[in-house]
Every structure is written in C-alpha cells, then in structure tokens.
C-alpha cells in the first residue's frame, strides 16, 4: 500500500494559482510559514497582517484570516489586531520595501514595545513588484533600475542590516537572519520561523526573521545563479545567524 510522504501543508490552499515568479524564494518562505503554523497547531487561531509588494498576495494562498495593510503599515495593523485580540496569534509577512523602508518606524517601535507579534521580512535587495528598483537592502555596487551604475555611497549610502537592528531593541524576544539558498539553510530557516512564533505564543515579546531571498526576475538570473548570488554576495554582508533569542539557555 502506498504511503504518502509529502503533502501540502494544511495552512496552504491547494486550489489557487500561486502568483510568485518561477524560482522566487517567496514560494519557499510562504510554505515554511505554513508548515510552522501546521506544526504549532495554530492555523485557526492566527491572523495575518499582509503587506504591500510581492508579498501582498500571500493572503490568497493561506488558510488564515487576513487584513491587507497599506504599504509599510503591516506591523502597525498587526499591533492593532493583537491589542484588540491578545488571544490570537498575529503575524506579518512583508518584503524589505515594506518593513525596512517605508515601515521601519513601525517595526522598530513594535520591537521596542515588545509587541507580542511575529514579523517575517523577505530581503531580496530590491523592490520586486515595481520592477527592481533600489531599496534599503540593495547591496553597495548593485545595479538596479534606479541605480544604473550601481549603488554608490555618494548618492545612496548604505544598506540596512535588519536582524541586527531589531536585535538591539530591548522588547525583541527573537531576531534572526536566515537564507533559503540550500536545503540545510532552508531547514534552519524553518526553525527560526518557528521560534519567532513560539516567543509570541509564550508572550515573551517581538519575534523577527529576516529571510534572504532571490528575485530571479529582477536580478535577471536563473534560480540557481540567483541562489549562488545569495551565497556569494548577500551572505557575506547580511550574515545569517540568530542575533537575539531570549529563550537561549
């Protein structure tokens, strides 16, 4: 008799068309979040505060209640949801444009207040949905449609290191940066995401995971080359690791 060894997480909808580009890591990241919600048994008690950018359509794919926030305000809306319904598990799923750029104030202040929510932020070094412009995480030297000769310091300054910044906030319970470039790293990523939800469930404070991801379309690369870029160019600058974990030892 056949044994099923692989299936769609319950949190994911099986009957919808996924809108992420081929090879984009968003698909993997959403799946990891879904697996974590499955494993923690919190699918029916969770509310998503959805962001603007490529991440916006996430609410179409997952079986949780969702509120679409204006650009940059996903954390603020998550805070509102959580303060109204402290019994719910509340999370955001945002890009770096949403969290690190227009919504940085909300992210930092939620972390400082120790809001019991979880924020997941995709870092792909560009504004993906609008066609690959320079964002707050664009690497020095990186060519984008608004940095045609590469990110230079004179005009653009430096990219932000989110996981480190969020870890500095006293209300943060967990802050990590992970990568999806390889199977071992994907496994680590899932553990970090799980931890970021667990600290919320335990009421310990703000949980944050920055996920290094590919954007093959705007990077104009094949998926495997894009993963190589994550390894060779992004990870030396955005070093994966756990920057804060109040549950450690």
């Amino acid at each position, binding site marked *: 008799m056949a044994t099923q060894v692989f299936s769609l997480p319950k949190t994911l909808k099986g009957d919808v068309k996924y809108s992420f580009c081929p090879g984009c890591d968003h698909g993997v990241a959403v799946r990891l979040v879904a697996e974590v919600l499955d494993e923690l048994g919190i699918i029916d008690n969770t*509310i998503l505060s959805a962001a603007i950018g490529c991440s916006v359509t996430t609410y179409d794919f997952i079986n949780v209640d969702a509120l679409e926030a204006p650009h940059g305000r996903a954390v603020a809306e998550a805070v509102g949801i959580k303060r109204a319904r402290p019994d719910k598990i509340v999370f955001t799923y945002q890009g770096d444009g949403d969290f690190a750029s227009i919504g940085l104030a909300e992210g930092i202040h939620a972390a400082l207040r120790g809001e019991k929510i979880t924020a997941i932020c995709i870092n792909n070094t560009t504004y993906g949905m609008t066609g690959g412009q320079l964002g707050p995480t664009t690497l020095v030297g990186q060519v984008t449609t608004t940095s045609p000769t590469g990110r230079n310091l004179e005009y653009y300054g430096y990219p932000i290191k989110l996981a480190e910044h969020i870890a500095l906030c006293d209300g943060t319970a967990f802050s990590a940066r992970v990568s999806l470039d390889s199977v071992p790293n994907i496994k680590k990523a899932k553990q970090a995401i799980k931890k970021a939800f667990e600290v919320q469930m335990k009421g310990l404070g703000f949980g944050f995971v920055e996920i290094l991801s590919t954007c093959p379309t705007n990077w104009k690369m094949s998926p495997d080359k894009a993963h190589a870029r994550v390894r060779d160019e992004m990870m030396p600058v955005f070093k994966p690791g756990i920057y804060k974990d109040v549950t450690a030892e």
Partner: protein
Amino acid sequence: MVECLTDKKVLTKGNYAIANAAVLAGCQCYFGYPITPQSEIGEFLSGKMQELKRGYVSAESELASINMVMGAASTGVKAMTSSSSCAVSLMQEGLSYACADELPFVLVSVMRGGPGLGNIYPSQGDYIQATRGGGNGDYKLIVLAPSTVQECVDLTYKAFYLSQKYRNPTVLLADGLLGQMMEPVEFYDYPYPEIDNSSWALSGTKDHKARIIRSYGPLADDRCRFLEKLFQKYKTIEENETEWEEINTEDADIILVSFGSTSRNVKTAMKKLREKGIKAGFFRPITLYPFPSKRLAELSKTAKKFVTVEVNMGQMVDDVRLAVNGACPVELINKGVGIPPSAEEIVSRIEVL
C-alpha cells in the same frame, strides 16, 4: 478628571467628555499620538484603558495610530484614535483604506489652525479635510459636528454606533474651543444597540473559511461592482442619518448656517437680528456628511438669502451653495482662525451685507 462618571452632572472639558464617552461606549482599543489641542483624550485614556485592561498604545506616529485602529477594527471591536489637523493629514491614506476595507472605528478630529503647522487655536479649517478627505479614490467618511460639551458625549456615542452600523470610519469633528472648554455634562449608558460583527470580523478560522479584508482588486469589473455597492451604502446613510437643527427658519428671509462651536454665537446673532425686526433663521448641520442638502434646498424656496458663518476661509459655504443651487444668494461671514466672531460682530456684518 480621572473617574469614569455616570448618572451625575459633571463639569468637564470637551476632550475629557469625548474620552469618557468612548470608554462608556465600549471602546476596546485606543491608539494615539499627542497633539494640542486634543492631548487630554490620550492622557485620560492611557490610564483608564489600562485600568480596564483594554487596548492602549502610545503610537510612534499618526501613521501608526490610524493603522493600529484599523487593525483593531478588523477584529470587530470598537476602536478609536484622535488627533488634530496637521496630524489628521497623516491619516488620510489610512482613511481611504478603511473605507475600502469597510472598517468601523471613530476618529476624533479636534481642529486647530492651518494650513501647515498653523497654530493651536480653535479653527474649522478641516471641514473639507473631513467631508472630502485627502485620501485617494471615491469614499465618504461619516462626519458628526458637536457644538457643546454635552454633544461631545452624545455624538461620540453616535459616532461609534454609526461606524458599526455602516462599517465605515466616522469622524467626530470638534475643535480646540470644544476640546478645551468645560461645561456641565451628563454621562449615561451607551444608548444604541450593539452590532453583531461576527459575519465579517477576523477571529481565526475556527468557525469560518479564511477571510480576507482587502482593498486590492486586480480586476476592473470587480472594482466597479464594489464601488457601486459602496456608494449604495452611502446613499442609505444619506437617507437615514442626515441630522440638523433649525430654529425660526419657516418665515426667515435670511438663514444663518453654521456648524460646531461657532454655531452657538450664530444662534445668538439670529436672536439679536430678530430683536431688531430682521426675520433671521438658524440652521446647523449636525452631520456634515451626510450634509442636509435636501432641507436647505427646501428652505431656499422661501428664504431670500443664506449666510454661512465659519472659522475658516469659507469651506462649508460650498456645500450650502451646492444645496441651494442658485435659488438665492449664499454669502460668507468668516474669520480665518481662533475664537468665533462674537454675536454682535456677526450681526453688524450681516447688516452691511
């Protein structure tokens, strides 16, 4: 005032009256950022909401507070934020989203001088901001304008009710004068029925399929249908909820139109004009949206002239002109910012019109 008082007349500021009424209305969450002349609202609620174990956040900005209130509203609870003029400007994006998302909550807007940073004195310069909005797209906010501290209580209750009933943000449009002024008021139990939000509120998928509260609709046809439905709702609001006060209008040659705190001096001016033998009437829109256009149009058949009195450079006068639609002249008596013109001043300015 730190106590939550009921069943007894108390002397209190408009700001405290609003805050206390919000608590009594069952407001479960308040989010705000300080700005004169409405900071007492957040000050009062910071203590009270914590004492009652309700939601309170001293938000990092008005951008954050309007979005926090939207988040809370999405779960079906009564929620509120408050601010003033230049900072209400920061909330316009959120208000557009909230109308599109059909999120019910109350925004208390205590007007001060503008444009820009302006000043902290009373003003009615945000009539257009409240009734037209600075956000994108087609939407309407329900707007209620109190003229006394007692009405700050009455209309706070009503604002919560209408927002819940119609799933639409509702603005309580007060001003620095009402916010800072003390008058005796009576608090009483929330007089409206509670609205069941369980058919749409976000609560987790234990008893329903996953819900999405969203304004993004990639298909133009879907969007058209949504807008038609939204504006059908606004039509219902216009039919059912338009509210105004009128005195001595039936035989009036000249009808003075004014809203909010300014209307108090205007009412006295009308009485003084009557004493002088001038047939003056008084008309006060209480709901600024929906605006009592129909009634003004009726009155334009018998009145010879309308005069709007406003503390701004002339904003509501446009709505009166639209309502009257050329049937008779509509004049403006105004003052840019500050305490409303005195009754005597209004009378003498009307006499030279």
